[in-house]
């Protein structure tokens, strides 16, 4: 209740504010709050992911963008009357729709009675993984997850196609400026990170492989990995980071992640099952499921990490170039 109240306030604040930097920060907080709200609703995995993405990556990307595109929004919103009308109609329709909904948290809602029980009751025998979310994610609806990985891969390729500069001079003058701007914003971060990075990597590995038992899994792990690398590059400058992690390699990794996931499916076809039917990966179905999920999560982690890095590098890189050009013109 309270959390929701906060959320509303923040949202309204975002509407009013013209300072994009503040807006972005607020949206980050919005993500964080909704994450904590997810926790109260027992959705730990989702909370984890939302925290990592909504509060983390998304905010970061927006910040980079804002540093380049300028800090203030100087257009009064046009056509706001129409917009308001549309929004009101939609909203009223939705409210109208809620009237016949089963009450919040009710035990006998159809959603609780039809498909879900099978997951809750049988997943232990069928998959043997305590974290039901993981087993649904990676096995029952594994194909959705493959799609998800492809989506993130698509985003990576798209960003590459849009932003990867044709030629990037290795002069660091531009980078400094970027880092300076970053340091101003993440002062604490800079101090803490140096110590943090190894722990972060360790934690990422734990999340990656512990996903079967507790909250976590390939996606969250991937994001954390990426976070570590990004922090590193922010401290030691883009070019240094690029020297450590070469672009072609990282692109290759992002592709390989998808392929790993896919090939698991293909192998299970070759073993005479349906696509992504892990039972046939080993003689014992449960063991097969374990193996399958492990590999799949690896694939996810691999792709997510590399794509996140790709996206960030290109965003930052583009900003550098832009600033360098501006300084030239100035």
């Amino acid at each position, binding site marked *: *209740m309270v959390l929701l109240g906060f959320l509303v306030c923040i949202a309204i604040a975002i509407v009013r504010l013209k300072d994009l930097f503040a807006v972005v920060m607020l949206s980050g907080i919005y993500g964080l709050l909704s994450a904590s709200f997810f926790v109260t609703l027992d959705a730990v995995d*989702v909370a984890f992911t939302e925290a990592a993405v909504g509060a983390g990556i998304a905010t970061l*990307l927006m910040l980079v963008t804002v540093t380049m*595109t*300028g800090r203030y929004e100087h257009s009064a919103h046009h056509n706001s009357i129409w917009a308001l009308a549309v929004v009101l109609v939609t909203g009223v329709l*939705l409210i109208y729709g809620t009237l016949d909904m089963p009450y919040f948290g009710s035990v006998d809602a159809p959603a609780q009675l039809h498909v879900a029980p099978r997951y809750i009751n049988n997943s232990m025998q069928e998959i043997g993984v305590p974290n039901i979310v993981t087993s649904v994610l990676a096995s029952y609806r594994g194909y*959705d997850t493959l799609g998800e990985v492809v989506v993130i891969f698509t*985003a990576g390729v798209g960003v590459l196609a849009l932003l990867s500069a044709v030629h990037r001079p290795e002069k660091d003058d531009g980078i400094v400026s970027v880092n300076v701007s970053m340091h101003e914003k993440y002062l604490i971060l800079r101090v803490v990170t140096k110590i943090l990075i190894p722990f972060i990597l360790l934690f990422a590995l734990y999340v990656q492989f512990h996903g079967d038992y507790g909250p976590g899994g390939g996606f969250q792990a991937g994001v954390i990995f990426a976070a570590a690398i990004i922090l590193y590059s922010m401290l030691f400058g883009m070019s240094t980071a690029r020297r450590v992690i070469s672009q072609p390699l990282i692109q290759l990794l992002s592709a390989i992640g998808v392929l790993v996931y896919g090939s698991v499916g293909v192998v299970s076809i070759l073993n005479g099952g349906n696509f992504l039917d892990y039972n046939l990966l080993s003689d014992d179905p449960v063991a097969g499921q374990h193996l399958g999920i492990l590999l799949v999560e690896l694939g996810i982690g691999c792709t997510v990490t590399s794509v996140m890095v790709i996206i960030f590098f290109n965003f930052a890189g583009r900003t550098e170039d832009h600033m360098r050009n501006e300084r030239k013109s100035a």
Partner: protein
Amino acid sequence: MFLGLYNYWIVVVLMMIGFYIIIAHGNLVKKIVGLNIFQTSVFIFYISVSNIDGGTAPILAEGFNQYSNPLPHVLILTAIVVGIATTALGLALAMRIKEAYGSIEEEEIQQRVNREC
């Protein structure tokens, strides 16, 4: 009635705020922020659906028999990824537009575009 549904209503309000930002604001980055809020609110809605009184997180453990519905969680995990993907692409486009048109305000860009036509 109110107690049963207030949570959905607030979610609806959140969604609509996000939606409003998308269509009413001219700043490209702000539109993306709006999109984020809109989608996040939809996520909240899904998770609310999955919630169940006296339930616990869907991680099997001794002593629990009421788990909240794992399916929406899975769906939303996917949806979050889709969201970040869209955001990334949108922001990338915004950067390119800034480079190409020197602005990220809808009206200014529209003017320049019309001039070209």
